[in-house]
């Protein structure tokens, strides 16, 4: 396993390193590690969203799969991502898919699916039956009921599920650096390896900062993506 170690002088200050433009640029720079992390996380969250939102809305609309939901609540907080990824590394290598990024990708995907599924399912299930019946009485087809009533009213809760998934994925992705990859976790890994406390702290700050930024940007999207009426109706349900 060949991993280029981040070359950081041991005696440099944390803030000095973070505010030095040369530590951000170049192939080993923070920006390129940040890019690795963001791209992987974005792919994971997008795939989780485009699979789980249709599946969960269909199941909830047709009132199927009640049992799976309570089971998922426990499961979603119990997935040992590090162990799952660790288990997948040998399998991936033996199947010829290489060290990276398949194991971490699948482990993160498993982490992202439950919150999106859960929020979509419960949000659609909890849509006021009166609104659904009124739409049917007005002659809406089942598809129109789903898209124009149920999904419209459920949007904010679904977005909250996507946010929870995104923040969890961003917060977990740094273990990739310890499983043969790179990404934003590399600075903590290299700092620990070189006994360089400053680098560990700087790396931890970058990771925590990205997770916080993800939460914040999703919250502002949630705020702007909604029509006023729905926003007023749905604020109480947001997690």
């Amino acid at each position, binding site marked *: *396993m060949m991993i280029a170690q981040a070359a950081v002088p041991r005696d440099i200050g944390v803030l000095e390193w973070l505010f030095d433009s040369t530590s951000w640029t170049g192939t080993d720079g923070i920006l390129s590690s940040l890019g690795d992390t963001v791209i992987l996380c974005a792919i994971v969250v997008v795939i989780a969203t485009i699979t789980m939102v249709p599946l969960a809305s269909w199941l909830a609309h047709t009132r199927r799969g009640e049992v799976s939901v309570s089971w998922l609540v*426990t499961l979603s*907080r*119990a*997935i*040992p*991502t*590090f*162990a*799952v990824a*660790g*288990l997948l*590394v*040998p*399998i991936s*290598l*033996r199947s010829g898919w*290489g*060290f990276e990024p398949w194991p971490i990708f699948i482990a993160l995907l498993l982490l992202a699916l439950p919150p999106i599924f859960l929020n979509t399912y419960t949000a659609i299930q909890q849509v006021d039956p009166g609104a659904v019946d009124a739409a049917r009485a007005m002659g809406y087809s089942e598809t129109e009921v789903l898209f124009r009533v149920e999904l419209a009213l459920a949007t904010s809760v679904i977005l909250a599920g996507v946010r929870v998934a995104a*923040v969890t994925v*961003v*917060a*977990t992705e*740094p*273990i990739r*650096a*310890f*499983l*043969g990859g790179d990404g934003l*976790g590399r600075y*903590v*890994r290299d*700092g*620990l390896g070189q006994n360089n*406390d400053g680098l*560990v*702290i700087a*790396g*931890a*700050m970058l*990771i*925590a900062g990205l*997770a*916080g930024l993800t*939460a914040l940007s999703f919250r502002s999207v949630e705020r702007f993506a909604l029509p006023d009426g729905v926003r007023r109706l749905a604020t109480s349900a947001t997690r």
Partner: protein
Amino acid sequence: MIPLLAQAANPIVRWEYFIDEWDQIRRALVEHLELTVYAVALGLIVSAGLAAIALRYRWMVTPINGFTAFLYTIPSVALFGILVPYFGLSRLSAVLPLAAYTLLILVTNIVAGFNSVSPEVREAADGMGMTPARRVFQVELPLAMPYIIAGLRIAVVSTVGLVTVAAIIGQGGLGRLILDGLRRTFWTPMTIGSSLSILLALALDGLILLGGRWLTPWAQRGRGVL
């Protein structure tokens, strides 16, 4: 990257490893269990205190919930890493973050449990002349127990999973087998470490479930009648 010959000699699990390296596996398992127990115990003590404050002073519910939710969103690699300069590659650096992650679920469930006790029951206990302390421990706590057990199950299962990540700071029980295997590109310890940590989570979950049934027999009795 790895020659074909090495691939053949490096199966996903080499069963002899269980016998040859049993000592190492056992040590990792025990360490994993210890870290889990310390972290959840510490989390439970802190949560009990925070829940008591939240139950006593209603306005504290939001700040306490916000604080524990904030702790929960801190990436584990970052939290383990940030403590290393202060506590070194020690057990404390592993236990503190692990305990911090349990607070959200434990506080939420303890508060929900005590809130589920109906005011009539509380009044009846007072009417029988119970002191507040006796009422809390002999009436309210047992009635809140199903919620607390439910929270404990999730806390323990997720802690078992997170302990493996503590391997990055030289702790981490079974997680160390995973990292060790990765460093040597030797799959057996990786597979064993990963599978055992998943099995350990399931086993502890079942154990707490049974313990909860034993502690709250009345919660099951009703189900039998229906």
